[in-house]
């Protein structure tokens, strides 16, 4: 059984990639890696293209991270998705953007490209003419008396756009197929050639609810590439913001899931706590969602005494009120009736797709990027990573509940040990005078691990940046989790996943 390091050793090592190794490998090695994915020993962290290359980020059994790359002669490469389904949509996306043709890919329908861009393969060396709109063939479901329900892209609430095609037998969902890409903004295209400051703004606007996590993962990648040492205080402030973001989102989600089970009192109370978090964030860092507060090189704001006080009283309030809400959730039979055994995601699927966040952890996948591969300051903080095996809506609620408790503790620990000193260093352009620099970073957002891989050119601008939202590996699992449930339970299942549309569509 090979280790990832052996495969990378076998390839042509790229010298300037930090902190995890990357190597250009032969097709044989590429296929060997695919075998490891299929066997379930390794996990796929990401797959993305460049005009003449395809890259795959992997996590092996020893939890080592690495990237292997394959030269695509004539724009072709052997499809990973034909053997390992989690790569399917990633390959379809790379095909749309770069014109790369995965040989053997079983699903060649366009994914992000809806035929509206006026150009095809926009990120290829030579973009093509308009792709033209073609009708999208949804996958078939056959059987007696089946009917289809089409939902979206515009949904009936304050929700992001996407299309869901249900095939149902009576009330029971036989098949759900998602069609996404409606909010594709071409972020990776805009980043190419952009100065680091502009690219950082774009990264922070990839998924609004994870603006802190995205700013952080992008900043960490830039800093790794340029070899910048971030001041200690900034590292701790960033973690503080990240935990506040996690709190706000988890509190909002717990309430919203209960609301979909017609239990509005939880929604109201959780909504109040979420608003408290946003107000504390505003008082501490000057923005409710803390947008643009993390920059490559440090943070934009320092935390003063008033801000510290706001966060301390926030923690005190949540500690006082939240346990009552948890008790209410736990003791309300009508609510449990809706969440227990609903939308069950099998442990095998969570492992196969390397599902991050509460989706994976509610289905037995014990992974948290804060712990492994880990990053500062979490190595100096005490926290548990809750894991459950049930995989139903109820389990995803409980993972969030436990993570709220962990985040409260983390916030307290950070406030208690916040080092002094500066909060930012300049990212000097002369750092890149010696040519190309590549780096990769992995950060645990509230939804799961977010990956960024980027290359900075000799002129100090972003040459290529790829961002992989956790939703890429969660959306397909929603299709699996809803199977056999009733149509009316889709909203509660969907909310318990709470995948990002914008983060996925890019």
């Amino acid at each position: 059984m090979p280790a990832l390091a052996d495969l990378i050793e076998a390839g042509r090592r790229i010298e300037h990639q930090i902190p995890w190794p990357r190597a250009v490998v032969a097709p044989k090695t590429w296929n060997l890696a695919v075998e490891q994915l299929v066997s379930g020993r390794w996990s796929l962290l990401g797959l993305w293209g460049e005009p003449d290359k395809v890259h795959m980020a992997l996590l092996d059994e020893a939890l080592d991270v690495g990237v292997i790359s394959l030269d695509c002669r004539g724009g072709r490469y052997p499809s990973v998705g034909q053997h390992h389904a989690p790569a399917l949509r990633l390959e379809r996306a790379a095909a749309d953007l770069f014109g790369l043709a995965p040989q053997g890919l079983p699903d060649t329908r366009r994914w992000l490209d809806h035929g509206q861009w006026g150009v095809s393969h926009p990120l290829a060396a030579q973009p093509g003419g308009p792709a033209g709109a073609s009708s999208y063939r949804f996958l078939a479901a056959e059987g007696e008396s089946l009917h289809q329900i089409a939902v979206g892209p515009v949904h009936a609430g304050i929700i992001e756009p996407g299309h869901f095609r249900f095939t149902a037998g009576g009330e029971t969902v036989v098949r759900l197929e998602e069609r996404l890409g409606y909010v594709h903004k071409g972020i990776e295209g805009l980043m190419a050639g952009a100065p680091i400051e502009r690219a950082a703004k774009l990264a922070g606007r990839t998924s609004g609810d994870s603006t802190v996590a995205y700013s952080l993962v992008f900043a960490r990648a830039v800093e790794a590439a340029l070899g910048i040492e971030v001041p200690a205080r900034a590292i701790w402030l960033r973690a503080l913001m990240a935990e506040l973001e996690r709190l706000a989102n988890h509190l909002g989600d717990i309430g919203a899931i209960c609301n979909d089970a017609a239990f509005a009192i939880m929604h109201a109370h959780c909504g109040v706590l979420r608003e408290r978090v946003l107000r504390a964030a505003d008082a501490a860092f000057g923005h409710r969602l803390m947008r643009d507060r993390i920059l490559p090189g440090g943070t934009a704001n320092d935390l003063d005494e008033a801000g510290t006080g706001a966060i301390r009283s926030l923690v005190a309030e949540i500690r006082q009120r939240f346990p009552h809400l948890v008790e209410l959730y736990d003791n309300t039979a009508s609510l449990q009736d809706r969440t227990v055994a609903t939308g069950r995601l099998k442990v095998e699927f969570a492992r196969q797709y390397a599902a991050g966040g509460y989706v994976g952890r509610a289905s037995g996948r014990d992974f948290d990027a804060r712990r492994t591969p880990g990053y500062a300051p979490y190595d100096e903080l005490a926290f548990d990573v809750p894991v459950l095996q049930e995989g139903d809506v109820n389990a995803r609620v409980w993972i969030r509940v436990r993570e709220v408790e962990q985040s409260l503790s983390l916030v307290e620990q950070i406030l208690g040990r916040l080092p002094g000193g500066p909060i930012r260093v300049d990212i000097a352009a002369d750092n890149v005078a010696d040519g190309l620099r590549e780096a990769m970073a992995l950060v645990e957002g509230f939804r799961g691990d977010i990956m960024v891989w980027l290359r900075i050119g000799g002129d100090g601008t972003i040459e290529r940046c790829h961002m992989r939202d956790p939703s890429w590996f969660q959306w397909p699992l929603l299709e699996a989790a809803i199977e056999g449930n009733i149509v009316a339970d889709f909203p509660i299942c969907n909310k318990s996943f709470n995948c990002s549309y914008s983060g996925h569509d890019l």
Partner: protein
Amino acid sequence: MRKLLFESLIRPPLTERPPQVSDAAVDELARALDGVARKRLGRSLSIRAVDAGSCNGCELEMHALNNAFYDIERFGFRFVASPRHADVLLVTGPVTKNMREALKRVWDATPNPKWVVALGGCAKDGGCFAGSYAVVGGVSDVMPVDLHIPGCPPPPIEILKGLIALLDGANGKAGALQPPRRETSGQSN
């Protein structure tokens, strides 16, 4: 549940009221909004939110309008599920090319008289996504816009202020189908 309900009896309400809970501005705004909304529309304004490509930041702050602090429904403002029920389309995001057609259809499905509010910096002119192969631009590139509320994202209080401005405008031209286009003041980024 009993404990929570009992506590609610003895706790002061969260809903923004005189300065005590938070800014006096919210209360002032609440009174102004109430008067204007009542004058123009009796007591109701139905809002259909449409995400035409946003990062979801604006949606989060729209959701906040429904929480106990802002409780937008007490002014008669209501988020509705269908454009057929809407007076106002509240549109976010740079309009992506993949959403252009859907957005047009929502507009066509909304009965007159109708207003369009573009929410957030991206909805104005595409924001930092302008110029992308996948982005049309601002909402006004697809349909007439009556009001733009700036911010990235605009905090709930700014969205409320914007809605007042819209009603003020509508009152200035009572009976007209299309009120004057205008811009709210406030932070912009």
